[in-house]
């Protein structure tokens, strides 16, 4: 302000001011530090105190982390290495990283057959390809087709099986869509949906089973000779291998014994020579453990091949026997007296016997004996049929070797359960949230009931239901994979939380958005899909990702029902003699694995929020 005009009201600027550089103390590193760290005396003190604290913590922790124990084969060796360095040999002297080197593969893949590691690795790599177009919209849209097929490829890669199973599933989905479109065109879309769903139910409950059995039978009969020859050759080869391994094991054991017995009888636990001998024998011990593992694997494979050979050998007899068995069962069934004619299963027979015991019904003993005989004959038929089917299935399998769920473990289990449950819980949660807002009273009550039930019950309870109770409700004989059961429970559990998170997003939308969509003539589903959900989901991103992260971490709970996730494995690793007593390294490593996954999810959600930011609402 110029002095000349200071006390006059009227003022006219005659020269415009040029832009100037900001003061030096407010820009660059100096300005940044002043603004963020040393704003005033109080902030300066806080900055210094925090720096000292962080430095102290690092000073205390870093020596523990920096510990040259990577090559150690046991906790004992770790302690030896640390003592040699003059450090404390206990927990505080330094980390024992040998356990991670020794067991990291197991922590990642559990007891998945090591020659098949490429399958989970490939599945994981393809998972990246499949979710990339969902996560990043800038990628080519054609990739979405791969995403659509991936849900079928993923289980096939992990669990293996014949190649036509995933193909039949894809065909089923495509045919259902085709039926929906076809019927929808010639009648109303509602009939189209009904027809499509009915077709899908028909396809997946009946047709897939029948078709794959037929394929098995045709391909199986064609391949049976070659498979038998191949099996014989493999059995011979593996037998030779196992004999060689046994010889090597014997030799190694003898070497160890020699080393140990070269020292005189130990006089006390702290005897130096004896400990020294044990240390010298350690490499041989490691070799021995490896050899035994290998023998175990070879033995398992041999057992499998021998069982297959036995199956194939039995097949002709089973096939020729089957008609007779069937005829016998039918004759017995027809000859049954009226009193027990309607009893078709053992469960029903048990009920009948209980009733007889209570005196409710009176059935002669010979009738009961006839019934028992009939049921046994029928069971025999069913068993024979199943055996034939399973043999053909084994012989005809062109595809991947099956891996049973019991062999899954480590992060593989966590990621499998986590990814599937995450992918399924979001759509389910959306449906539940919409259902909860519905005007239809029954739909609404069902959704509210489900959500409240799932949120009101601890996840562990649900997992126990999955592992034990579920079998009681299912028809006898159905074998429902344990990992699949856990996935279903985790999905249902997470979807209830997801529904509430999304309901929060829906509640944050103004009524005007619904009215805007309505006034343009969009129908309910169009309005939900195009207007309401994109906004509600965007608002709920932090909550959704929190639920995802929580779900992923909750997968560690499956260790209580005996699935070997990383935590379950850590218990078994710690019970190994070599690593008995290792705590922090193992749990720290598992924590790091989980942290990497969860932190990436969290960062992605921030990226997504920034990307979807379209100004003020």
């Amino acid at each position: 302000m110029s002095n000349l005009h200071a006390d006059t009201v009227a003022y006219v600027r005659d020269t415009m001011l040029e832009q100037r550089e900001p003061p030096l103390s407010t820009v660059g590193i100096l300005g940044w530090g002043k603004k963020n760290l040393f704003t005033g005396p109080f902030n300066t003190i806080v900055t210094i105190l925090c720096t000292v604290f962080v430095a102290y913590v690092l000073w205390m922790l870093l020596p523990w982390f920096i510990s040259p124990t990577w090559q150690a084969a046991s906790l004992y060796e770790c302690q030896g290495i640390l003592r040699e360095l003059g450090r404390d040999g206990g927990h505080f002297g330094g980390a024992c990283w040998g356990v991670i080197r020794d067991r990291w593969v197991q922590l990642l893949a559990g007891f998945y057959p090591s020659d098949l590691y490429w399958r989970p690795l490939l599945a994981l790599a393809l998972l990246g390809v499949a979710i990339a177009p969902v996560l990043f919209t800038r990628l080519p849209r054609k990739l979405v087709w791969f995403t659509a097929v991936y849900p079928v490829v993923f289980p096939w890669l992990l669990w293996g099986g014949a190649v036509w199973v995933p193909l039949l599933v894809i065909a089923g989905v495509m045919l259902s869509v085709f039926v929906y479109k076809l019927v929808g065109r010639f009648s109303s879309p509602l009939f189209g949906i009904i027809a499509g769903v009915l077709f899908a139910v028909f396809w997946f409950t009946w047709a897939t089973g029948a078709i794959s059995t037929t394929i098995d039978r045709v391909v199986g009969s064609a391949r049976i000779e070659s498979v038998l020859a191949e099996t014989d050759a493999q059995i011979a080869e593996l037998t030779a291998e196992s004999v060689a391994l046994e010889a090597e094991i014997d030799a190694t054991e003898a070497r160890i014994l020699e080393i140990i017995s070269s020292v005189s009888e130990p006089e006390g636990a702290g005897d130096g020579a004896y400990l020294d001998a044990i240390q010298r024998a350690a490499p041989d011990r490691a070799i021995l453990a490896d050899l035994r593992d290998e023998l175990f694997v070879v033995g398992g494979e041999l057992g499998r091949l021998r069982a297959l050979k036995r199956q194939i050998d039995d097949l002709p007899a089973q096939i020729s026997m089957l008609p007779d068995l069937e005829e016998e069962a039918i004759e017995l069934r027809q000859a049954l007296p009226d009193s027990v004619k309607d009893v078709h299963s053992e469960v029903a027979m048990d009920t009948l016997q209980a009733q007889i015991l209570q005196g409710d019904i009176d059935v002669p003993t010979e009738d009961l004996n006839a019934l028992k005989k009939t049921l046994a004959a029928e069971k025999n038929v069913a068993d024979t049929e199943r055996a034939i089917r399973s043999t053909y299935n084994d012989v005809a399998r062109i595809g991947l070797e099956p891996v049973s769920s019991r062999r899954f473990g480590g992060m593989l289990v966590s990621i499998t359960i986590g990814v599937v449950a995450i992918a399924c819980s979001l759509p389910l949660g959306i449906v539940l949230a919409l259902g909860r807002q519905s005007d239809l009273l029954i739909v609404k009550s069902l959704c509210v009931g489900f959500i409240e039930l799932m949120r009101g019950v601890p996840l562990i309870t649900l997992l126990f239901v999955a592992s034990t109770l579920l079998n009681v409700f299912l028809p006898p004989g159905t074998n429902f994979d344990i990992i699949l059961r856990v996935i279903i429970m985790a999905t249902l559990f997470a979807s209830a939380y997801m529904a509430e998170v999304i309901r929060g997003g829906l509640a944050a939308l103004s009524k005007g958005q619904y009215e805007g969509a309505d006034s343009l003539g969009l129908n309910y589903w169009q309005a939900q899909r195009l207007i309401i959900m994109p906004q509600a989901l965007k608002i709920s991103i932090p909550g959704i990702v929190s639920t995802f992260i929580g779900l992923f971490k909750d997968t560690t709970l499956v260790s209580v029902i005996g699935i070997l996730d990383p935590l379950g494995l850590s218990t078994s690793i710690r019970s190994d003699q070599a690593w008995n007593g290792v705590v922090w390294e193992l749990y720290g490593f598992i924590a790091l694995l989980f942290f990497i996954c969860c932190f990436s999810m969290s960062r992605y959600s921030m990226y997504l929020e920034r990307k979807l930011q379209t100004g003020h609402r």
Partner: protein
Amino acid sequence: MSDVATAREIDRSKMQVSDEVAIEINNMNKWYGTFHVLRDIDLTVHRGERIVIAGPSGSGKSTLIRCINRLEEHQEGQIIVDGTELTSDLKNIDKIRSEVGMCFQHFNLFPHLTILENCTLAPIWVRKVPKKEAEATAMEYLEKVKIPEQANKYPGQLSGGQQQRVAIARSLCMKPRIMLFDEPTSALDPEMIKEVLDTMIELAEEGMTMICVTHEMGFARQVANRVIFMDAGQIVEQNEPEEFFNNPKSDRTKLFLSQILGH
């Protein structure tokens, strides 16, 4: 409230009221719970009419026009729009909504879509117009409301007046035969009110059938061919604007007009 909506001469060549009935409301009643909001409403709107509904707040004027495209449900009586009666049949409702455009006090644009996407959404999904064609139409209407350069921005980046003009363009993209305006200028600054009113006047000049709930008496005087005054859920008085403003019959109208024009 200003007494004139525009200083320019209004072109009345196309503003013609035909005999054809656009909307017919017979003896319509509506309740919110037990509260009787609309009582025995009878109203016939001919094609080409420009009707302004005025009245104190809570008199049911917004509810009335929201009943016309069934954003609100009526419990008694008949509403016939373009020859189709509004019942609970969803097909009829969607058909009528795509024929009747509506603009809201708070615009109700979709904040996650660009201006252009806001305008093309309904034509593409409801009318099944190809995307290219829908975009061309949308640009045409955006040009008409004088904001084609904002097409790729998001609603949050526009001023209130611009947003309301986009909302008008969005409705027009559906090629509606009737336009409903629910207090389109109440949430705007005076400067922006003018730009929105200009757009509405242009629309009227093209012969659009319009029903406006508004407090813009200047607009009513210059553009409307009929002014309806509502109070306590009933139509109290309706007349041509000249008569309505200069020679109100009922005491309630006189009181309302003295309050709204008095300062």
